[in-house]
């Protein structure tokens, strides 16, 4: 490692791309087998393999960066580009579902009663739990920024507290949304309203869970002294992802919950 004449990272050979690819194969084939033959074994095996791959791959990246010093400034720049590009791809993912929502809601068909919300659908009141959810996520955006400044200023205890608070707010959002799902007067099977509502908010909820998990890993790393005031890209990536999740919610709230009611 001290023998290279450049600042870039030539990674050690790794088995995780292969195990990850096989996990993807098992999950997709497993889904088909579940649909046709009612057996979940293959899909479950794929899921376990995916979790093992993610744990070990990201563990290795932490080792390479924090313990081996491979994340030099040019390498970190590449990681930043990578995270930005990934989040951009996720933006396009959600754009598709918003397209579907606006396609159906801007020109409601006669089958729906020519109106939006469609005849027979009682939408959720946007000024009850959905508004609380908006406040919760906006507050979590503030606390994650507080955490970032704490890390940059070397305030260890404050960083831990504000990061923990961010995660708690994320969990609170998830709990509130789960309750809303349970209590909702309509289901995913209720025409195009139900489909667009639950697919868009459902994928958003999944991203809240992913983001909360990412932040929780950062909390563990902050407790274990991995981050320095100058170098803490893992946390920055988690914060970017969290802000993205927050912005998607704002669009969901304004479009589906508010305008769509």
């Amino acid at each position, binding site marked *: 490692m001290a023998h290279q004449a450049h600042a870039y990272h030539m990674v050690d050979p790794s*088995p995780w791309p292969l195990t990850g690819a*096989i996990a993807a194969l*098992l999950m997709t*084939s497993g889904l088909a087998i579940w649909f046709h033959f009612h057996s979940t074994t*293959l899909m479950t095996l794929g899921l*376990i*393999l995916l979790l093992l791959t993610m744990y070990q791959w990201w563990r290795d990246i932490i080792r390479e960066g924090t313990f*081996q010093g491979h994340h030099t400034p040019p390498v970190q720049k590449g990681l930043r580009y990578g995270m930005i590009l990934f989040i951009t791809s996720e933006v396009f993912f959600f754009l598709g579902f918003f397209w579907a929502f606006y396609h159906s809601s801007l020109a409601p068909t006669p089958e729906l009663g020519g109106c939006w919300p469609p005849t027979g659908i009682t939408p959720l009141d946007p000024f009850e739990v959905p508004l609380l959810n908006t406040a919760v996520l906006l507050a979590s955006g503030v606390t994650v920024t507080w955490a970032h400044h704490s890390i940059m200023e070397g305030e260890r205890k404050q960083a831990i507290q504000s990061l923990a608070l961010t995660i708690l707010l994320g969990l609170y959002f998830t709990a509130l949304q789960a309750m809303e799902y349970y209590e909702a007067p309509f289901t995913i099977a209720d025409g195009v309203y139900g489909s667009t509502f639950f697919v868009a908010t459902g994928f958003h909820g999944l991203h809240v869970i992913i983001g909360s998990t990412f932040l929780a890993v950062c909390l563990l790393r902050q407790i274990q002294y*991995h981050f320095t005031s100058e170098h803490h890209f893992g946390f920055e990536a988690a914060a970017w992802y969290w802000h993205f999740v927050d912005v998607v919610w704002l669009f969901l709230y304004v479009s589906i919950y508010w305008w769509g009611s």
Partner: protein
Amino acid sequence: MFRHFLTLQQVSRRQISSTVRRQLVNKVPDKQKLFQESNGMPVHLKGGVGDAVLYRATMGLTVLGTAYVIYELVKAALPQKKD
């Protein structure tokens, strides 16, 4: 993470209180030494025996899973009609 609590000679400054949470000591320098050791091990096995166990378990599931998926897909593609 908690395996190193037995190395008492390194923790002269650490206080263990029965009423308050234990102060975590910074183990990053120890980890840096472990993972920068010149032993030719790839990063995914460099942490020790635990790495090898987890790797073997993962690869075992990968191989078994590959065989199983080929079996299930072949079975699904060539249905055996029952009389």
